[in-house]
């Protein structure tokens, strides 16, 4: 009887540890996308500028995912025989947007304008890593508050550690 309790306790503790290990450490940093899009090919090999596709980065708080029309703009001609491109084309034919999985996700109470950061001359790499080498996009920054603050204090951003600068 006593032993059973002991087993239950040990098992329970191990269970909780396992749960949090998964939750904290094994968060999906590079989720599988509906289309196996490679930044390496686009930004790396073909040297396409970030803002060619992420068109709103300098104008809005969001950088914007390229709309399907923009994808098709090139891929109506380029590499139309590739199975991945055909997937894009099938979305286009069905007139459906592509359901990309969000990699850099901020909670609702955070106000993060891409515009201000891009206009301040920050390179996309600073936060998003060297995407030109990534076959599948991967989250390279923790996006935790300490991470934001470390940069804000390093760059001596005006009111950079004021709560309402980044929270809403």
């Amino acid at each position, binding site marked *: 009887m006593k032993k059973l309790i002991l087993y239950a306790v040990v098992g329970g503790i191990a269970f909780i540890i396992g749960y949090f290990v998964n939750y904290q450490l094994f968060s999906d940093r590079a989720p599988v996308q509906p289309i196996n899009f490679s930044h390496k090919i686009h930004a790396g090999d073909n040297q396409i500028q970030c803002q060619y596709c992420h068109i709103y980065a300098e104008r809005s708080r969001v950088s914007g995912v390229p709309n399907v029309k923009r994808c098709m703009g090139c891929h109506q001609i380029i590499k139309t025989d590739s199975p991945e491109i055909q997937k894009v084309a099938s979305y286009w034919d069905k007139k459906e947007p592509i359901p990309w999985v969000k990699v850099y996700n901020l909670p609702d109470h955070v*106000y993060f304008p891409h515009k201000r950061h891009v*206009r301040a001359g920050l390179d996309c790499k600073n936060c998003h890593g060297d995407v030109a080498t990534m076959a599948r996009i991967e989250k390279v920054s923790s996006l935790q508050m300490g991470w934001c603050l470390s940069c804000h204090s390093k760059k001596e951003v005006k*009111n950079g550690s004021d709560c*309402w600068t980044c*929270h809403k």
Partner: protein
Amino acid sequence: MSGFFERIAGKLKSYREPGYYTKLDHKWTMVIDLDKCNGCEACVVSCYAENNLPVVGKEECEKSRAFSWLRIERYVEGEYPDVKVKFIPVMCQHCMKAPCETGCPVYATYHNQDGLNVQVYNRCVGTFTCATYCTYDVRRFNWFTYKWPKPLEAQLNPDVSVREMGVMEKCTFCIQRIRAAKDKAKDEGKDVQDGDIKPACSQSCPTGAIYFGDLQDPNSVVAKLAKSPRRYRLLEELNADPSVIYLKRVMGDGNSSHE
């Protein structure tokens, strides 16, 4: 010896003064002309629309849990037929010596460099202290997680977060508009000009009774109105140093055709 004590006292005092750590960038101030205000409550709805305030329903209203960050208080004097009715819009007064700020144990409410008393929703643990200490009863609490029946949620303003259960909130002087105006001014490479910022209530006011601007700018409209002989502040004797300035309503004698 006395100099020593004075020095200590001065130190303690300056520590409690706002702006001890940083000089204020702005001092946003609202001036409300009570002689213009006719109590129509357009501002109240405007505030609901701008700031994602939930509608709580009759039962909750009965428990005084309505969310209006801005309310029109109405006071009645006298009896029929000599009834005098007075209106006053009351919102967070953004006190420079705010009682609520000393109450919060976790700095969820504090004074920022714009002279605003701000509430950080995601830091709030909900001790209610700020709301209890508030002398103007302007703080509102998220008693539940409020839902917007579809498709009403399409109206929610993305510049303002939807607060979760257990969090205190209050009027922000439409800080998202201040932020947007600053953002725009920065794009244009200049400072925020007087009149660039209009909080939702001020914008919608049909009689134009609500003015908003930077008191530190001597040429702003509010700085001029703040010198009006009609100026007063709500419960000024409590020394919370509020940032909302009211202009007294003109009323009283002058009934040449009466009595």
